[in-house]
């Protein structure tokens, strides 16, 4: 069964995320959590990460040490704190800040991952800076031309993987081919979809539709035997209908698409609420539907998936929503562990690591 419960228009997002909390291996994974990044730092960041902590999931907080320590319960286990005096703001130029601000929480945390002192990194801070600092300090898996931000997006009847949603505004066809391979590994390992189908986002189903890069990417992916189930092109309207399990696009289109869908979902839920609250009659109808509507709201809640994974790096880097609350951070930390203990990185290294330009 793929995609959830037959006959139901949607399934709970827990279909994907339950496996992240279910720790069945003995491996101790250390996740660095940027306690200085995000709209709700450090309170919600610390609270969320503590929810995920356990003997096999240790957390290292990076940021303003006294502020972080004040939020920790006495005698807390499996948690440590590393001080970072600086923060990279949302308005700073990513690559420059990542190079210059070596005392920032993002750089200090990623350097720890690079040095092998931790296994994964989570931040709700400046996305561009996290991408730049990851490239500079954690480094790409050799052979990966560009990293891609891969998010899990609520769709019907079940979530889809969507990449790139913002790391690369412009993409050559070869990058898109690599995204297809990395997205396939992500769907298998992080989302537990054994045989994911891959779709290339375009403006028509025919292989000849789209920009020159997309047309060339279609040919490259179709001919690439590492991509097991290439559906072909899909259109914007197919994203939420989950025509495929993995949607590949460039970072500009992906970011616009993601935010359009998030905004639309919020607007529709708001309109629905306004209709329900309109009169006594509609309120009664709403009361009858309350439980089902909560499931729907749950299914559309991006917090459930914590964040997006920066694919192509030597370690899992999780970019959480800037406005993440505790639940989102807890899930991001769990996703980080998932990225470490599964075959995600070895698969990408195996499939792209030895690739040459002529393949």
């Amino acid at each position, binding site marked *: 069964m793929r995609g959830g419960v037959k006959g139901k228009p949607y399934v709970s997002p827990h279909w994907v995320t339950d496996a992240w909390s279910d720790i069945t291996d003995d491996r101790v994974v250390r996740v660095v959590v940027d306690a200085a990044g995000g709209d709700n730092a450090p309170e919600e960041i610390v609270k969320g990460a503590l929810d995920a902590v356990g003997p096999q999931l240790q957390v290292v907080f990076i940021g303003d040490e006294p502020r972080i320590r004040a939020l920790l319960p006495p005698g807390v286990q499996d948690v440590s704190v590393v001080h970072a005096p600086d923060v990279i703001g949302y308005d700073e130029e990513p*690559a420059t800040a*990542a190079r*210059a601000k070596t005392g920032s929480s993002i750089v200090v945390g990623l350097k720890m991952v690079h040095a092998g002192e931790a296994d994964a990194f989570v931040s709700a801070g400046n996305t561009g800076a996290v991408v730049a600092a990851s490239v500079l300090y954690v480094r790409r898996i050799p052979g990966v031309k560009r990293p891609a931000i891969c998010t899990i997006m609520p769709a019907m009847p079940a979530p889809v993987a969507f990449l790139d949603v913002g790391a690369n505004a412009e993409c050559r066809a070869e990058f898109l081919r690599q995204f297809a391979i990395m997205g396939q590994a992500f769907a298998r390992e992080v989302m537990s979809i054994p045989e994911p189908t891959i779709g290339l986002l375009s403006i028509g189903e025919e292989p000849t539709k789209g920009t020159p890069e997309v047309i060339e990417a279609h040919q490259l992916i179709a001919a690439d035997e590492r991509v097991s189930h290439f559906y072909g092109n899909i259109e914007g309207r197919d994203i939420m209908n989950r025509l495929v399990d993995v949607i590949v696009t460039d970072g500009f289109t992906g970011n616009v698409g993601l935010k359009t869908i998030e905004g639309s979902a919020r607007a529709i839920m708001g309109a629905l609420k306004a209709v329900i609250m309109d009169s006594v009659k509609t309120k009664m109808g709403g009361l009858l539907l309350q439980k089902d509507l909560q499931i729907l709201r749950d299914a559309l809640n991006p917090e459930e998936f914590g964040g997006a994974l920066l694919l192509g790096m030597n370690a899992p880097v999780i970019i959480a929503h800037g406005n993440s609350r505790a639940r989102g951070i807890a899930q991001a930390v769990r996703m980080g562990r998932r990225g470490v203990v599964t075959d995600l990185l070895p698969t990408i290294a195996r499939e792209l690591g030895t690739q040459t330009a002529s393949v």
Partner: protein
Amino acid sequence: MTREEVFEHVKGILVETLSVDEDKVTMDARFQEDLETDSLDLVELVMTMEEKFGIKITDEEAADIKTVGDAVDFVMTRVDA
């Protein structure tokens, strides 16, 4: 270190770290126009060069490095100094 040796090192960084096609890397190749590197690639290149050659490159100096030849010449001035 000769100019040719420095060129081979820089070429190695471009091919291995930035996955640039080897046959495109010539002394005259411009990073942005010919090698299609972006701003992040250039920062990565600069940091890798600092590491590899044990030198420091300021942001201002990095801004003047437009071609592979510029990079090689810059390294030559520092390594010889």
